Every structure is written in C-alpha cells, then in structure tokens.
C-alpha cells in the first residue's frame, strides 16, 4: 500500500461511511472495507479504473468531481477522502468546502511543491520540476494547482477549516524530526485530517 494511505487508515473509524473522491482502482476502499468494515463509495471517471473497482466489489460512481457534488447530502459520510488529487482539480477551494459539507471529517493528501527538490530544480535549472514523483511535463500535466504546505495552511486559516492532524512525510513516507521542524522544505507528501 502507498505509505500515505497507510497513515490515513488510522484516522478512519471501523464501520464508518467513507467517500473516496478520485478513488482510482478502488484499492484503498477495498482495503478499508476488508479491514474496517466501512461502507464504501468511490467516485471515478477513468473507465479502466471504474472497471477495476467493479472487479474488487467496490461501489463506484462514474462522476466527475470537477463538475458538481450537489447530489451528496450534508454530512452523509463520516470521512471524505481526496488522496493525491487536490492539485489536479479545477477549483480546489470549492472542492474543499464541498468535502467539508458532505463529510464529518475530511482527509486530504497532496504533493508538497515547497519541497527542496522542486525549489532546487526551479532555482538552478529554471524549469518546471520533473521527477519520478511528478513525472509530467508542464504542458501535459494533470496537476494544474500545485501548492505548498504553507499555502494549504493559509487556505485552512482563511476558510476556517480546523486541522485535526497534519503529517508531512518524505519520499520514503517517513516523518523524521527534521521534517517536523521544516515540513515545507523537506516534506514531499502532505497529509491533512480536517473538519469544520
């Protein structure tokens, strides 16, 4: 399992209702269903990934989270997940509001663009960072809204979003004392547990 997922599973209560926005092939929901008995719902638009969800027996809805989530009722899920997708959506702030409306709590993970590797790449090469972690060229990337840990903290403050837990990890998904000291510089993946 991807290590960021390993961290967030501890924040999900057994038997709770979980909505995974951009659920991919449904691995996380399947795992949570199997180990925690959650009621699972995933949103996905990629046909092959939807098919993979059906194979796993995960409940999947073909729905574009960039369009509208108004078909979901207020507080109809315990936890709403958005893993490694925030940077690819059209209106991250609107989506955050929607997630906090639909879920009692929200878990968001995203790549931290403030990481020293990105800074180094941009500073010394003068070009948009391309790495194993962010493998796209600027013109074909789905990641249109990169942000840093500090940016996201600011958004939470502005929108009065309560940060229950913030974990920032490196590419090995470990959080050392150094990362805790300089999360925006050393962290590669930011993992937030939020509520309102």
């Amino acid at each position: 399992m991807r290590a960021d997922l390993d961290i967030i599973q501890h924040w999900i209560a057994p038997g709770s209702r979980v909505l995974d926005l951009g659920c991919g092939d449904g691995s996380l929901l399947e795992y949570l269903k199997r180990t925690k008995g959650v009621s699972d719902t995933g949103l996905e638009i990629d046909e092959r990934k939807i098919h993979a969800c059906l194979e796993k027996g995960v409940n999947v809805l073909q729905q574009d989270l960039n369009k509208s989530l108004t078909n979901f009722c207020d507080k109809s899920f315990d936890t709403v997940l958005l893993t490694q997708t925030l940077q690819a959506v059209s209106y991250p702030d609107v989506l955050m509001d929607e997630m906090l409306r639909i879920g009692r709590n929200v878990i968001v993970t995203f790549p931290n663009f403030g990481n020293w590797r990105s800074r180094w790449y941009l500073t010394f090469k003068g070009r948009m960072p391309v790495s194993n972690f962010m493998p796209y060229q600027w013109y074909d990337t789905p990641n249109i809204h990169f942000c840093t840990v500090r940016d996201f903290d600011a958004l939470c403050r502005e929108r009065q979003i309560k940060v229950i837990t913030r974990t920032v990890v490196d590419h090995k998904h470990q959080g050392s004392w150094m990362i805790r000291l300089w999360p925006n510089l050393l962290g590669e993946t930011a993992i937030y547990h939020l509520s309102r």
Partner: protein
Amino acid sequence: MPRPIPEYSVGIVTPQRLHFDEPLVLRSGKSIAAYDLMVETYGTLNAARSNAILICHALSGDHHAAGYHSDSDAKPGWWDNCIGPGKPIDTRKFFVVCLNNLGGCAGSTGPTSINPETGTWYGPDFPVVTVRDWVNSQARLMDRLGISQWAAIIGGSLGGMQVMRWSISYPERLRHAIMIAVAPKLSAQNIAFNEVARQSITADPHFHNGRYLEHGTYPKKGVMLARMVGHITYLSDSAMRDKFGKNTEELPSDAIKSNFGRDMRTGKLSFGLDVDFQVESYLHYQGERFSERFDANTYLLMTKALDYFDPTVDYDGDLSKAFENSQCRFLLMSFSSDWRFPPERTREIVDALLKARKPVSYLEIDADQGHDAFLLPVPRYMQALSTYLARISDEVNA
C-alpha cells in the same frame, strides 16, 4: 438456427406454461382469478438454490430471452448476446429465469386469452396491469420455483422499473438489483409519445374498441404506426445518420450523388408520396414485422404500465424514502445517446439511493445507439455486466 449451434448459445430451449390458481389482486382494485405465466429457464439451480437470476423484459419483450425454440428459428431470444455459457449472464454459473409478463401476448394470460367469465377473448376487458402487479406475480413464480432470494434481478427500460419495484416491495428477496437505461418514472415527453402510439392504434378502423378478434380482424396499420413512432425514440440521431447516410456507391450512376446525407432508396426523388429515403422503408419494415407478432391491446397495456410507473406514490413523492427498506446492492447503467431515458434520469435514481445510503454503482456508457443500446453488445457495457456478475457468482456459488 445457425448450424452447428454456436458455442456460446444455450441451444434449443423449451418454454413452460405455469398455471396459478390463487387470485391476483391488482393495483387497480380489480383481480385476475387465475392465470398462466410462460416461463423460460437456462442453466441449473444450485443445491443452495442461491444462484437464480430473474430477467425482466421491456415493452416488447417476452420469456424467450436466449437460445432457439426450434431448428427453423432464424433468430435467437431477445437478449441472446448477454445470456449463455461464457456470456455476461453466464448460464454455467447462474440459473436464469425469464417470463412473459401478465397482459403479454406470448403465452401468458393477456388480452388474447379466453376470459373464463365470458368464454371469449379478454380483448379490451383485460384489466390494466402495473409494474407492481407484475412484480407480485413474479414473486409467486419465485415461490413456485422454490427460490427464496434472487442472486440478482436484471432489467433494461421497463424491465429496469420492475427491478426497482422488487427492491422496494420485496427488499429481502434479492441480493443485487441491476437496472439499465431506466428512469424513476416517465417524463411528460415519454407519455406524449406513448399517447401518440395509443391513438394510432385506437384510431385504426379495424380496432373495434379492442374487440378486433371477435370481428376477425386486426388494427395492423395502427400497431405499425405505434411501433414506428416508438422505434424512433429508441434510436439516436447519430445512430440513424450511421445507418442511413453512407451507401452512395450502391446507387445507380445517374443517381443524385449528394444523397441528401440520408440514404435514398433509388437515387431518384419520386416527387410524390412514395418512399424516397431508406429510413422510411426501414420504419415500415420494423412496424410491419412488429405488427405480425404483437397484440394491439397488449401494446396499449404496456404503455399504460409505463405511464403509471411511479415508485414514489406511497412515499410522498420522495424516491429516497421509497428505497429506505431496500437491502440489496445496486448497479445502474445508462447510455450517453439515450434520449428516451437519458443518463440524467438514471442519475436521479442513483442520487435517491445515495440519499437513502444504499450501496450503489453507476456507469455511464458511451454509446451511439440510443435507448436501444441496452439490447446491444456494447463492449464496455458487456464487460461491466460480466465483471459485476462474476463477483455475484463468487458470493452465491461459494
């Protein structure tokens, strides 16, 4: 029937006529004292009697969903591309049941049956049956077959409405509800098309207020017209362009080469009321074939059942309340070019299920064929059905 029998066919099948003596009280308040249901089954019921799948047919369907009745059959059952060994509804894994609904004209009790009270055909006296009445009769069939819970109930269009009714009326009697190209109820536009169809039948001078059998005649023209207007709503604009916009090469050399973008029949305009375009003769042909096999009174009944369907009537108009007691899992699929029951209508059901906190999956299949797509082997649709049903098989055949 093709020779040899195709590998993935259920082969020759024989329908059975089951008689039911207990009166069935209908939603209208009327009742049918006794009735027959024509039933076809494929595959084998497992020892736990847990692998049964019910197929609900749509407006013009019947019990003959797969295989052939005899060597001389040119065409297999109406959903043969989906039902058979190795097909999405795999008869090696499931016991598949399909019946002709009450009021039908393929052997179950309906307007062309003899009314025991009068000794003549029911004709227009056959009571109006609703989706709920059908589902109640299907539940009796289920008891007769010794099945306590369906592994799944599957239906498209009007068939999907029966699936929906099952999940509401008999929540503990199905594990999975699979609804395809369906709407929570008809729109005013849907009802309008149905009314045109009904008017074309009842306005036919051979209709005789529905007693055409007693007059030794048949409102053929009316049924043809009804089917023609219905058929248009089953196809999409692009499906028609595809079908009727290509074959300029086949026309004679002095033909009008523009072809008007719609295949012409002869390449020349008649400058009269003759058939100029192939779509016209296609519709005539479809109407003609249909009128040869389908009863006019049954057509009227089926369209009424469609018009009357509204599972929210007992729930203050709230579809999510209707689903409150449902216990099954749901799979819904719609087709992008379906303008009869377009994807947004299917999503109304999905949203009601979400609101009721029921487990639901939903796929919107890209397909050009319009509403008809639910009967066609659209690859992604077939693949999704296969995958979903394979998991059901794992659950019930464990």
